[in-house]
């Protein structure tokens, strides 16, 4: 019996050795995919769709799995001035959280060498529900959006290779890229996908309006009447719950002779798209002033007044604006009260999106 057990022990040692050998060989068979050798250490994140909202029109995370490590890498990149030529212009310099990631109180933003941008910085939230990006829809994927400001001579004025060289010299990026992608490679794809994870995660769905819809709050009389006016005059284009229908329309603004911005026509080359711009979401609109693609209107009262009496006729003017809004001054104010209920303080102060 004693002898039997001893023998068994010896055999077991051989068995273990063989198991290990077999397992090692099994792994070796997959040499092409070295990634298999790493134990997956990323932390998957779930992208939550707010109750009652439509499904995102394109799944921006389909080929860019959302992880905590990718998100945090994107967050660091978003706030890092080294993405610009002189170090002064992070993404966050024109996209400020307290302004719903637009530029607070600026019609046009500032870029490299005291230059102006040519359009009002759009706020960033609910980007997962967009098909195209920018005022003219010229960018067709969230992952390639960051290339535009990064390389524009009047914005961040950098080039991709130069940014990557700076990142590779920083050991914290070396670590964070490795954690996010389980590979030592720091390339443009990893950088762009991480930024897309960060900005694509920004969801604003907790304004007073949302709370009223969920039965957690109620509108006062002015807001309630403003909401009725909104549904009658605005909701056709600023469609709930995202407050945009993602279409491109000419809303009757006169051409700025200096900027000469014809909007979507520049992208499609189609004269029917002249002077058309994306219908922007009205969520957080009270903190994204000034308004319109060139920031020409400084208050929401001015915006409503534009639709009451400022529409400029042109060949491509939207059919819904052929007749001006017929509302009183009091109704205008009520409409503005309602628009203030779209401010989502929990989003504007969400620490997840603040500077790391």
């Amino acid at each position, binding site marked *: 019996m004693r002898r*039997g057990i001893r*023998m*068994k022990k010896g*055999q077991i040692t*051989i*068995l273990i050795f*063989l*198991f290990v*050998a*077999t397992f090692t*060989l*099994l792994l*070796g*068979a997959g040499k092409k995919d070295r990634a298999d050798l790493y134990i997956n250490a990323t932390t998957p994140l779930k992208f939550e769709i707010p109750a009652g909202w439509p499904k995102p029109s394109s799944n921006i995370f389909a*080929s*860019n799995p959302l992880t905590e490590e990718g998100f945090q890498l994107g967050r660091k990149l978003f706030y890092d001035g080294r993405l610009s030529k002189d170090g002064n212009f992070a993404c966050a310099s024109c996209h400020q959280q307290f302004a719903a990631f637009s530029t607070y109180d600026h019609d046009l933003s500032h870029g490299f060498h005291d230059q102006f941008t040519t359009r009002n910085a759009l706020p960033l939230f609910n980007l997962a529900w967009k098909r195209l990006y*920018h005022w003219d829809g*010229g*960018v*067709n*994927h*969230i*992952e*390639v959006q960051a*290339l*535009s400001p*990064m*390389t*524009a001579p009047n914005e961040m004025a950098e*080039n*991709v*290779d130069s940014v*990557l060289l700076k990142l590779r010299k920083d050991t914290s990026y070396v670590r964070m890229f490795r954690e996010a992608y389980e590979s030592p490679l720091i*390339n*443009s*794809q990893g950088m*762009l*996908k991480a930024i*897309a994870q960060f900005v694509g995660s920004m969801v604003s769905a907790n304004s007073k309006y949302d709370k009223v819809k969920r039965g957690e709050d109620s509108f006062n009389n002015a807001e309630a009447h403003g909401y009725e006016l909104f549904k009658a005059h605005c909701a056709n284009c600023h469609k709930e719950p995202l407050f945009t229908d993602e279409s491109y329309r000419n809303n009757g603004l006169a051409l700025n002779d200096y900027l000469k911005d014809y909007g979507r026509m*520049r*992208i499609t*080359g189609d004269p029917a798209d002249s002077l058309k711009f994306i219908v922007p979401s009205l969520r957080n609109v009270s903190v994204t002033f000034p308004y319109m693609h060139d920031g020409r209107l400084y208050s929401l009262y001015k915006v409503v007044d534009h639709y009451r009496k400022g529409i400029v006729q042109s060949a491509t003017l939207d059919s819904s604006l052929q007749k001006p809004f017929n509302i009183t001054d009091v109704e205008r104010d009520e409409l503005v009260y309602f628009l203030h209920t779209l401010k989502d303080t929990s989003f504007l102060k969400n620490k997840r999106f603040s500077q790391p």
Partner: protein
Amino acid sequence: MINFKINKTLIVLITFLIFFISFNEAKIDTDEASIKIIFINTINNSRIVLNDSIYTNPFNEKYSISKLRYYISNVCLENASDTFKEHDSYHLIDESKEASQSFSFSVPEGRYNSLQFLIGVDSLHNVSGAQTDALDPANDMFWTWNSGYVMAKMEGNSPASKVVNNKYEFHIGGFSGQSSVLKEVVVNFPPATEVFKAKNTYTFIIDADINTWWQNPHDIKIADHPVITTPGINAKNISDNYANMFHIEKVITE
């Protein structure tokens, strides 16, 4: 009894070991032929020289070339019944980088009649977000304000150009609808090379005649069109012309 049982387990394990070792060996395919494709950009049958050479187009306009790049993608070999497609088939041919001008892949042994490829990047990869390698936006072949790849790029100087520094600049792109510049090219193999034998290497020297860019079917004069850098009819016209630039110069079998 115990010994017998363990020995049986040992036999099973050793069998597994042998199986995996042989499985690894089997991965090296022995019935494939190697294909190497080399692009040589020429004018008047001579390899072009960047910057320093002066060429003359069919309209007697003199020009130099400082930059010449184009995408070759979706490379396939075809026969009557089958198509063999190169895996991850995206190549940026850059006249200033010799290593970019050739690539290799292997195909199953057999008979193939033609080589097919796209000049440019297929429409799907123009809308798929951040890519790597040949499709890396750092290659300066991606439009950032109107997303999409520049499928072919040629720049230089010409006295016929009246824009700044007598520059001419063609950034040819557009991947959808009427403004698509994507061109499918079919190059038929010389009959003697149609059968590809295993373990052989077939090197195709493909001549790209850059003077085709100017004419047939559309006349492109530098004086009229020194700058074409947006999708549209002029870009489309140049792509119609350069679709004819390739022919097989020779095939080397080794």
